[in-house]
C-alpha cells in the first residue's frame, strides 16, 4: 500500500479512501491511485480491510434465477451500472427460497456492504438495518413488505397503455395469461387487477367477461404454450391474449401457430418485458418495455447514497417510466 501511495504521489490515507470507495476524493486522484494499483498489481487484503473498516466493498444482487431471460437482462444492467460506478458485485440466485433470501440478507455486514434484491422479499425475511448501515434496495418488488428503498416501473401506466392499444385496435374480448402486472399477491379483488379493470373500462372494454388463465408455477415458454391452449378451449371467441411476460407470450405464439390460429388476424398477443427474442419472433411481439437500465441506474443511485451516508433517513420509492413497443403481434405484417 505504501508503494501505491508513493507511485501515485498521495498519502496512505488517500489510498485507503479510494480503496474503500469513500466519497470526497477528487476524480483525478482516484484515477491516479487506481492506475498505481493496476501498475503494481497490488491487491488490498480485503479480509483485513473488513475487520478494520467493517466494509467489504462488495454488493450482493439477489435474483430468483438467471435462466429467466428478463432477470438475466436486469442483472446484466445492474452489473453494468455497478461497474460504471466501480462497485464490485456478486450475484446470488435465491430460487424463490426464503432461506436463501434470508442468508443473502444476513450476509450484509460480513460478505456484502449492501444488497440489491430483485423481486418481492418473502414475508418473514429480516431486513433490519436496510435503511442505515446495511442498505437493501428492492427492485420490482411490488408493494413493500418492509420499510426499504425501492425502485419499480410504472405498472399502472403499463396497463393503461395496453388497454388503450387494445381499444384502438378494436379488440374487445381479451384473456389474461397469468396475472396482469398491476396485480399484487395481496390484491383481494382477484383478476384482473383494479388498475387493469379501470384501464379497460376507460378504454370502453367490458371487464366482466375478461377471463384469466392462471399460471401456478414458473411463467416460462412452456407454461405460456399450455395456458394459451387452455384459453382457446375455455374462451373460443377470445380476440387478444394479455400475457404476464414475454416468455409466456412467446410460448403462446408457438401454440397459436401449431393450432393454425392467425396472429393477429384472429388473436392479438401482447407480452411484457421487451425481451430481445420478441423482435425476432414470428410474428414479432408487441410488449411493454419496463426499462431495465433505468431501473438499474435508480437502484444503484439509492444504494450508493445509503453507503455514503448521504441519504435521508426515510425510505425512498422511485418509479420509472415504461414504453409500449408495438409490433406485428398486434399490428399485423409489414410493421417493423
Amino acid at each position, binding site marked *: 500500500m505504501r508503494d501505491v501511495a508513493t507511485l501515485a504521489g498521495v498519502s496512505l490515507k488517500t489510498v485507503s479512501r479510494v480503496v474503500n470507495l469513500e466519497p470526497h476524493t477528487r476524480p483525478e486522484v482516484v484515477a491516479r491511485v487506481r492506475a498505481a494499483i493496476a501498475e503494481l498489481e497490488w491487491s488490498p487484503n480485503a*479480509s483485513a480491510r473488513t475487520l478494520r473498516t467493517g466494509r467489504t466493498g462488495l454488493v450482493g444482487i439477489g435474483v430468483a434465477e*438467471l435462466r429467466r431471460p428478463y432477470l438475466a437482462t436486469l442483472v*446484466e444492467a445492474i452489473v453494468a451500472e455497478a461497474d460504471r460506478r466501480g462497485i464490485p*458485485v456478486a450475484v*446470488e440466485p435465491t430460487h424463490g427460497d426464503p432461506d436463501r433470501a434470508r442468508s443473502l440478507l444476513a450476509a450484509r455486514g460480513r460478505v456484502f456492504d449492501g444488497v440489491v434484491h430483485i423481486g418481492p422479499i418473502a414475508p418473514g425475511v429480516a431486513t433490519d438495518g436496510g435503511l442505515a448501515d446495511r442498505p437493501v434496495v428492492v427492485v420490482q418488488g411490488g408493494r413493500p413488505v418492509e420499510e426499504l428503498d425501492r425502485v419499480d416501473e410504472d405498472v399502472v401506466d403499463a396497463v393503461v397503455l395496453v388497454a388503450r392499444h387494445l381499444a384502438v385496435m378494436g379488440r374487445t374480448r381479451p384473456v389474461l395469461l397469468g396475472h396482469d402486472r398491476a396485480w399484487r399477491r395481496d390484491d383481494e379483488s382477484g383478476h384482473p387487477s383494479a388498475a387493469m379493470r379501470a384501464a379497460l373500462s376507460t378504454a370502453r372494454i367490458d371487464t366482466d367477461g375478461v377471463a384469466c388463465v392462471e399460471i401456478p408455477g414458473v411463467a416460462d415458454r412452456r407454461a405460456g404454450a399450455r395456458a394459451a391452449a387452455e384459453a382457446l378451449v375455455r374462451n373460443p371467441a377470445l380476440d387478444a391474449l394479455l400475457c404476464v411476460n414475454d416468455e409466456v407470450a412467446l410460448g403462446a405464439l408457438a401454440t397459436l401457430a401449431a393450432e393454425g390460429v392467425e396472429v393477429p388476424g384472429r388473436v392479438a398477443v401482447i407480452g411484457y418485458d421487451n425481451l*430481445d*427474442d420478441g*423482435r425476432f419472433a414470428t410474428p414479432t411481439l408487441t410488449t411493454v418495455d419496463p426499462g431495465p437500465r433505468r431501473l438499474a441506474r435508480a437502484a444503484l443511485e439509492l444504494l450508493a447514497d445509503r453507503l455514503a451516508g448521504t441519504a435521508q433517513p426515510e425510505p425512498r420509492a422511485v418509479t420509472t417510466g415504461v414504453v409500449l413497443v408495438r409490433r406485428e403481434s398486434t399490428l399485423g405484417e409489414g410493421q417493423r
Partner: protein
Amino acid sequence: MSRRPTLADVGAVAGVSAKTASNVLLGRPEVSPATRAAVLAAVDEVGYHVNLAGRGLASGRTGRVAVVVPNLYQPYFAELAERLMLALEEHGLTTMLRVAHDECAEIDAALGPTTQDVDGVIVCPHHFTAEHLAGGEPRRPLVQLGGGPNDAVDCVVMGEATGSEAMTRHLLETGRRRIALVWNNPPGTAPWGDRFEGYLAALTAHGVPRDDALVVSGSDWDRRASGYEAMVGLLRSGTAFDAALCVNDAIAIGVMRALRSHGRRVPQDVAVAGFDDTDEAEFTTPALSSVSPEQPEMVRAAVRMLLERIDGHAGPPRRVRTGAHLVLRASTAVA
C-alpha cells in the same frame, strides 16, 4: 444493535475455551463428540455467526469462486452461469459473477487484481487464450469452460467438432447440399476451429465441395440481430443455399427472422440449425433444431477440476472433452 456474539461467548455457554469452540467450528478432529455437541448447541443458543473475514485471514480461503462470462444477454451464458452457481453451491461455495464485456475486462476479471477474495476462477471465455498468460501461471486456481482449447490451464472443451459434424451430416442426409455457415469469424477472416472442422469433415465424407462464399458472419456473435444482419448480407450476395448452420441459437433465431422477412420459408426453402440447445429453441416458429453441448457434464467437469486445484493439485494443465448430441425439430425437417 447489541454486540455481536463472539467465540468467547460460545465457549462460556458450552463450558469450554474459545480455542476449543474454534476447533469445533473448523472441523478439527481433536475434539470429543460430547464437546462438539455442547459447542454446537451453544452456537445456536447465543446466535453466533462465523466471521468470514476472520476465517479468510486464518485459512487463506474465502469459500467463494469467481465465474466470468462475457455477457448474460446470450441465453447460453446465462444458463451456464446459473448451472455453475448451483454446482458450486453443492460444494458449499458461493459465486461472484463477473460480466466482462470486452477482452480487457475479461482478462482482468480472469487474471487481474480486481477479482478479489476468491479461491479460484472459472472463465467462460470469448477472448482468453494461452497467450494472455505469456508463459506464466494464473495467480490462483483457474479453469476454462468452453471456448478454444487452451494448453496453459485446465479446460473443458465442448463437443464442438462432434456436434457440428453430426448436424452437418443430418442436413446432408436430408437432402441439403448448399449449407451456409453463419459463423463467428470476424468479417474478412477465414473460419477456423473445431466447429468448422466438424462441418468440413461431414462435407468431405459426403463428397460435397467446400465453398467459402457460403461462410458469413455478423458484427458479433452473441446477438440475434447479428444473425439477422449476416443473413441479409448472404441474401444480398445472391449465393444460392438451402440450409444455414449457425454458430449458436441466438444467431439462428436472427437468421430465421431474416429469412422470413425476405420471403424464404423455413424449412421448405432453407433448413436452419443452431448450437447450444438453449431454452428458447423449442418455442420458436418453427421450432429450432440444435446441438446440445450437454451443459451439465461440462459444468461438472469444470467444478471438479477447480476443486482439485483449490485443494492443491499441482499437475500439468488438463483437458476434458465433453459430448454433444442433436436435438432435431421442425426447422430442419425434410423440405
